């Protein structure tokens, strides 16, 4: 049986398999047919443009090396501005590269039968991007992908594959947002980072209080490869559950997951990351900074598994409580199957220090202004090696979030 047929069979069997974490979503309540009639008109609407800009997407694409845009299930733009970068839809990639390519990169970083959501995307999913950065190609400007939910109660189901070939380097910004009130997003993302390659992946979510989100992500990093993920969600959402898994299969490979969450309203977040250190001298760092306001719930997980000698892993969660109705839970798990692994974790959850607040108020700041200043400072990312443009972008988001208190 061909691999593409095999995954279909596996998916059928897993279609009712509940997810390991997070509340279930009744996918039958959502529609999978878009009501977009005129894409061009939609793209020119100021409210749509504003939403897209708010998740870091450069609509004019001037400051990006490549762009992919998908509204509902409709792919509206694939544009590569650099010769050594390929950007296309998954459908196009399947056609162009054929079965051999699928065997190598399709459902290999994450299993198709992980749960009902992965199975659903395989059987009914539409859209998604394939980005290939060719060997030794170092892309200076970031690449960008925009996933926009336009139709009311739409269920978006893209499957994305990113391949950074040996010695290549790229930054990819993915912005996901919504123009409708209600919707769901099941997004599969597979990342393959080659030998001595580097990918910085920044995902910015700005959904709405009636949106359910279940990203499913798998990462494979080869020898000397570097994968850095920054996940930022600073606007209200109904539920988000995600637990990306990185397998460090080549010596000295590394993975870093940074998460910035601002829980507002009734938002429910269950997220974290898993890193499997399969080769010697690999390392993983999982860091979360979460702010819980309103009656939000935030669960932060980190699982690091050491399976080879001389590996290092660290999980860290810092939580700031702004409300008595909110909750933060941190769940670190460290597992080693070897003697000489160095795995550590630390977590600290607290409220804003009353003395700091009183001090800022004695300088003429209102309580709201003082809280905003402290929260903004708290969310400021400390990510070494983050490109300047990304740093500035994240800074802008935290400023907007802090103002929205």
């Amino acid at each position, binding site marked *: 049986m061909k691999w593409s047929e095999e995954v279909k069979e596996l998916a059928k069997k897993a279609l009712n398999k509940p997810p390991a974490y997070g509340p279930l979503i009744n996918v039958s309540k959502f529609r999978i047919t878009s009501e977009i009639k005129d894409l061009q008109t939609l793209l020119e609407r100021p409210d749509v443009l504003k939403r897209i800009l708010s998740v870091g997407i450069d609509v004019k694409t001037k400051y990006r090396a490549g762009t992919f845009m998908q509204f509902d299930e409709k792919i509206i733009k694939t544009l590569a501005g650099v010769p050594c970068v390929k950007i296309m839809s998954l459908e196009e990639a399947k056609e162009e590269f054929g079965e051999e390519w699928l065997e190598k990169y399709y459902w290999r970083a994450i299993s198709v039968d992980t749960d009902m959501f992965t199975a659903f995307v395989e059987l009914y999913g539409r859209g998604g991007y394939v980005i290939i950065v060719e060997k030794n190609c170092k892309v200076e400007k970031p690449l960008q992908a925009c996933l926009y939910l336009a139709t009311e109660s739409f269920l978006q189901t893209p499957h994305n594959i990113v391949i950074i070939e040996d010695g290549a380097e790229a930054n990819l910004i993915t912005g996901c947002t919504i123009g409708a009130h209600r919707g769901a997003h099941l997004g599969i993302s597979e990342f393959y980072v080659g030998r001595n390659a580097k990918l910085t992946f920044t995902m910015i979510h700005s959904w709405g209080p009636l949106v359910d989100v279940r990203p499913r992500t798998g990462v494979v990093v080869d020898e000397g490869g570097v994968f850095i993920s920054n996940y930022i969600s600073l606007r209200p959402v109904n539920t988000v559950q995600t637990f990306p898994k990185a397998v460090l299969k080549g010596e000295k490979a590394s993975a870093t997951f940074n998460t910035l969450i601002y829980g507002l309203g009734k938002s429910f977040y269950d997220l974290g990351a898993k890193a499997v250190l399969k080769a010697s001298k690999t390392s993983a760092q999982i860091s979360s900074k979460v702010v819980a306001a309103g009656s939000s719930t935030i669960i932060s997980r980190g699982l690091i598994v050491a399976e080879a000698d001389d590996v290092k892993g660290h999980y860290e969660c810092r939580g700031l409580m702004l409300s008595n109705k909110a909750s933060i839970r941190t769940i670190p798990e460290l597992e080693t199957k070897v003697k000489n692994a160095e795995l550590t974790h630390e977590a600290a959850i607290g409220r804003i*220090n009353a003395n700091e607040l009183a001090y*800022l*108020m*004695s*300088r003429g700041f209102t309580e709201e202004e003082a809280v905003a200043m402290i929260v903004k400072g708290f969310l400021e990312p400390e990510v070494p090696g983050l490109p300047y443009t990304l740093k500035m972008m994240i800074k802008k988001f935290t400023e907007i979030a802090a103002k929205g208190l």
Partner: protein
Amino acid sequence: MLKLCRVTVATEHSKPIVHNVSLTIGKGELHVLLGPNAAGKSTLLHAIAGTPFYHVISGNIFFEGKDITHISPFERAARGIFLAHQNPPEIRGVTLRVFLQHLVKKYGFKGNVRKILEDYGFTEEHLSREVNVGFSGGERKRLELLQAEIINPKLLLLDEPDSGIDVDSLKLIAEKINNFIQRGKSILLVTHRRHILEYLKDIHVAYVMMSGRIVYSGEPHTVFKVVEEKGFKYFKHIPEGVLV
């Protein structure tokens, strides 16, 4: 400028710490409040500044003729009251650069911030650090006074600006206090050391506070002389309000 009328102060869940304090500070006057540790000096300053957790349970505080006893700390700051904290907290995540930018914006400061930083012994490197994180005692005290240059208040409440610092910082702080007075600012300075007083000019009046009460007030040199010769313990035994 500032008038306290029989002010009694308690902190949360405590008995009154400051009792029936009355004093008046005019424009451009430097008043010094002396007293041993735990006499209630800092509590009085916090009550004037309106710090949360410090409650005036009786009496009134007037500033420029208006009763400010029950207004918020940020309103008091906006009216021109500035408190230089004895132990300013670390503000994690907020760099000195960002913090000063907020102050400059809030108070419409038009002067040269870099020049002020230099005057107060700070370098470019300090700006990237979080407020007070890893700062020495002297740096923290100097940073407190530096903020007053940007805020330009009418009344400065200085809570032991001379504690835990080296002699160079002490001289600098004293020089800056003299400078504020020359510019017509009013100051209430709290200390329990006499060393800083040697560097200060034009002290208008000095008080001694014991167990939350002002037990002695008068011409500064007389007060300092008595404190020097007899120590604070001498004041335990004199009746309230009696001047020697």
